[in-house]
């Protein structure tokens, strides 16, 4: 069967996003050029008779029908809106201009569609084709009832443009039918008979009947040079016909096959009414089923979460619980604990399957499927929502309400998430999956104390010892003492330095990661960066507690760090853990802790660019390609993808990319607290990713995150294809340190 084409290159994706506009924009010059040619042939009178072959009263009927249909259409979203209001308040109206820009880029521009080339192209063809046909219909009504402007070359161009739009839409629909019936694409796993299947066939029928109606009209009028009822009766011209190319072909075929005038009239008339019924039916449907994404999806893009700190995804900075004392419930257990926007998200999902196709949990056989859990909540909202609303209106107790967390959405689904953000990054409608899952975790942890044993042990560990590494034999100052024995003095932060180097628990308490910490410190010292460390005064940044659902513990830990930072006069922070980096950058400001944070790869890229560090090719590694694994919290959540690659390029290392890289990276399996939580079932995520890295032919996996380092270290020992090759896992800083040391040694020789 067909091969799925995925677009990884950001440049190409941008180009394809541009294609969206191009499909539309290309039509205009093409048609205009042809109109110029037509002008030279003198077809100034060309036009068409609206409501040809149709009873006079049909005009009024169509208007009345349109009005009725619009009412039916409007009822759909309004009835859903009532259901969303079961949820809590949430403000999504800030920064309207930024929202409008977003809407242009991702709504009308369909910016995320080309991530999946086939489906994206298919959608663009249908979208632009249908949009032109819709605009064309409105234009025709305006022409017919207000100002007659569709005449001469304008009319011919108009007719050609709409025929081409019809062809585009038909090709798109056929691509969709092929994908559904012959390709049987797994993304359409959750298809529904009416919403998905019937809709496609209906749209195809609307397009085909439209072409046949046009063909009959062209056959009966233009091709025969018949008089049409315009301006009191003018003669039509066969030269006009090719400007409606599809109609021309169908009309000509009908005439040549000897179809009688009566048959053509009858076919035209009956299909016209059928077409009208189907088209208005389709418009009504826009208020209800999957196709309502035209309205609701657009609104959802407009209403997406905007971050004050430039967080890339909704799941990048989780919303805080403002007041624990007055909170009615911690997290989201029942429908009413979600916000209206969260319930709206659930409703706009069209089951396109893009999230699922990229979800590390789903793709390693776990229970979690992002679109699946949305659909489960949607089903329950539809089924129980009206009942809950009625009870609330009457002020009655709601009976037999099912919990969402743990019942409608299973325990494992909630705990399988690694918060990598792949789902949110792919979703064309900007549905915010992670905050919903995290709100449910909060409910399970803080209200129910219901969590996997390993998560409980981790939270207890964090609470009692301020770090997640149970059983470590190191302290936060062990590495400092070790460096001192080597004669390297690690400066302690006292407010006089420019940067605080935030080592993080893993960097201090795990033997393997201590090597990275030492490399970073040596590089910082060599480059003459003014920095200091906190030593024993560091505590967990709070990321694991927050992502394991204990918001209370997170706030305590974050608060403590913010106080330490403020007391010591910290302004700028260097972090080598993307999770700490992310939390300090995007989540501390929620608690009034505003600090400038750089990731070590960013700082080192800058130092190399400034010539303060001079890397050279590393001989011992030369000849073995390196593959760089993008950490989710660096690439996807923070858009930092270039700097680590710049560093590898500066070292002149041969690099190969994994299929899933940059924003499309595949999690190592350790995000969202899963560094310490056992996976529920299926393959281990880090093994899948390690196998992918091994498949590139690389001998070194370069990482920029302490958890990724741990996960790959385990992976290269357990995945046969990696173990056979003796793959090494090194932090970019470790590679850089060797490279710089080599460079210095060469200089002194």
């Amino acid at each position, binding site marked *: 069967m067909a091969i799925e084409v995925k677009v990884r290159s950001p440049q190409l994706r941008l180009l394809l996003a541009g294609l969206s506009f191009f499909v539309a924009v290309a039509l205009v010059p093409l048609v205009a050029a042809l109109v110029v040619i037509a002008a030279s042939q003198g077809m100034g009178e060309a036009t068409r008779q609206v409501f040809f072959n149709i009873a006079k009263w049909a005009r009024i009927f169509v208007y009345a029908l349109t009005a009725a249909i619009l009412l039916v259409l409007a009822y759909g979203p309004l009835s859903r809106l009532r259901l969303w209001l079961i949820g809590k308040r949430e403000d999504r109206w800030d920064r309207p201009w930024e929202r409008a820009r977003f809407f242009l880029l991702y709504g009308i521009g369909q910016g995320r569609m080309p991530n999946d080339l086939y489906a994206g192209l298919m959608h663009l063809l249908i979208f632009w084709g249908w949009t032109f046909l819709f605009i064309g219909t409105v234009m025709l009504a305006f022409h017919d009832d207000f100002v007659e402007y569709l005449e001469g070359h304008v009319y011919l161009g108009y007719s050609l443009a709409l025929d081409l739009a019809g062809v585009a839409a038909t090709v798109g629909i056929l691509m969709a039918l092929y994908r559904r019936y012959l390709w049987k694409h797994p993304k359409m796993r959750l298809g529904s008979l009416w919403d998905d299947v019937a809709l496609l066939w209906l749209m195809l029928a609307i397009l085909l009947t439209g072409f046949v109606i046009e063909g009959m009209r062209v056959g009966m009028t233009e091709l025969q040079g018949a008089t049409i009822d315009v301006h009191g009766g003018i003669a039509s011209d066969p030269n006009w016909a090719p400007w409606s190319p599809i109609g021309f072909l169908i009309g000509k075929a009908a005439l040549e096959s000897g179809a009688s005038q009566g048959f053509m009239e009858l076919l035209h008339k009956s299909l016209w009414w059928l077409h009208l019924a189907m088209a208005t039916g389709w418009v009504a449907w826009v208020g209800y089923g999957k196709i309502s994404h035209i309205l609701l999806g657009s609104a959802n893009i407009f209403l997406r979460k905007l971050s004050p700190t430039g967080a890339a995804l909704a799941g990048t900075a989780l919303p805080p619980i403002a007041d*624990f*004392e007055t909170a009615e419930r*911690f997290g989201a257990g029942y429908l009413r604990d979600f916000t209206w926007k969260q319930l709206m998200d659930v409703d706009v999902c069209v089951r396109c399957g893009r999230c699922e196709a990229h979800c590390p949990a789903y793709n390693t056989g776990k229970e979690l499927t992002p679109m699946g859990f949305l659909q489960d909540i949607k089903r329950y909202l539809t089924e129980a929502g009206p009942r809950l609303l009625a009870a609330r209106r009457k002020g009655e107790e709601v009976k037999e309400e099912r919990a969402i967390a743990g019942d409608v959405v299973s325990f494992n689904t909630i705990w399988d998430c690694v918060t990598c953000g792949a789902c949110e990054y792919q979703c064309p409608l900007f549905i915010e999956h992670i905050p919903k899952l995290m709100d449910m975790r909060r409910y399970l*942890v*803080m*209200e*129910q*104390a219901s*969590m996997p*044993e390993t998560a*409980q*042990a981790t*939270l*207890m560990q964090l609470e*009692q*010892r301020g770090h997640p590494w*149970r*059983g*470590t*034999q*190191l*302290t936060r100052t*062990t590495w400092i003492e070790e460096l001192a024995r080597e004669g390297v003095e690690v400066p302690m932060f006292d407010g006089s330095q420019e940067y605080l180097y935030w080592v993080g628990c893993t960097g201090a308490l795990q033997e393997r990661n201590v090597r990275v910490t030492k490399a970073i410190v040596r590089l910082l010292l060599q480059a003459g960066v003014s920095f200091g460390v906190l030593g*024993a005064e560091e505590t967990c940044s709070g990321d694991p507690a927050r992502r394991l659902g*204990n918001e*209370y513990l997170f706030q305590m830990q974050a608060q403590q760090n913010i106080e330490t930072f403020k007391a010591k006069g910290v302004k700028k922070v260097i972090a080598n853990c993307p999770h700490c980096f992310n939390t300090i950058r995007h989540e501390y400001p929620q608690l009034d802790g505003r600090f400038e944070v750089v990731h070590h790869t960013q700082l080192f890229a800058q130092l190399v660019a400034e010539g303060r560090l001079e890397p050279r090719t590393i001989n011992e590694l030369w000849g073995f390609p390196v593959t760089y694994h993008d950490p989710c919290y660096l690439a996807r959540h923070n858009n930092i993808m270039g700097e680590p690659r710049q560093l590898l390029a500066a070292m002149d290392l041969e690099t190969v990319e994994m299929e899933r890289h940059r924003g499309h990276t595949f999690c190592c399996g350790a995000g969202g607290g899963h560094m310490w939580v056992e996976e529920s079932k299926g393959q281990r995520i880090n093994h899948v990713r390690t196998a992918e890295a091994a498949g590139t032919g690389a001998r070194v996996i370069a990482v920029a995150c302490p958890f990724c380092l741990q996960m790959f270290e385990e992976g290269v020992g357990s995945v046969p294809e990696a173990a056979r090759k003796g793959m090494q896992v090194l932090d970019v800083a470790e590679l850089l340190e060797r490279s710089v040391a080599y460079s210095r040694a060469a200089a002194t020789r």
Partner: protein
Amino acid sequence: MALHIICCVKQVPDPETPASQFRVDEAAKKVIPAPGIAPVPSQFDTIGVEAALRIRDALGDVKISVVSMGPDSFRDAIKHCLAMGADDGYLINDPALHEADHWVTAQVLAAAIQKLAPFDLVITGRQAVDWDMGVVGPTLAELLGIPCVTIAKDVKVQDGKVVVERVLLDGFETVEAPLPAVVTVSNELGEPRYPQLRQIMMAARKQVTVWTAADLGLNPAQLQNRVNVEALYIPETKVETEFIEGDTVEEKVDRLLQRLREAKLI
């Protein structure tokens, strides 16, 4: 009538303190607390609270009191148990008792338990994870004059009796005892539960009742330790390597065997 369970808890230096940080003052015969490492509730004791909570989950009408003896920092251990779901906390904080051994501890706890009477069940950990002596529970039972069942993996209260599954080396046995009784629990019972946030917040607001020895009608001067610590030190592990020399392999093997026999290893 409500069942009253009394759990005895102790706070200990974190057993997961890295070995490099563990130090003792050999002259004073005391453990020096590792800097920056907070003490934790003794794990077996929180398992005891878990056992009590499970009885309450099963029976409903159960009151759980937590008793501890130690300095003010022990309050944290009591608060943790309250957050888990215990009802009341009592701390016997008397500077005169800070050097107490198991014998004095058991006498003080017994007095506190009697002050909290009526009670039906006393649950302690099988041992505290600092000194690992495992004697306070049985001593308490002796002083209170009630039965004692040790090293439990399951505790149930049925028909006025306590039914206990005891861990043995090769399995377990089921033992019944009349109430009131003392039961000491082991880790086979299962993980202590994770406190719900609301309970943590409630526990933070709850008052822990503080008593001195005098409040219990005891005179510290009359409470004499029976355990005398002779010496306290971290054992040194020495590795000595000796190469067995010889001209032939047979000779080397003979000498090796001779050395092993001398060392009584074979």
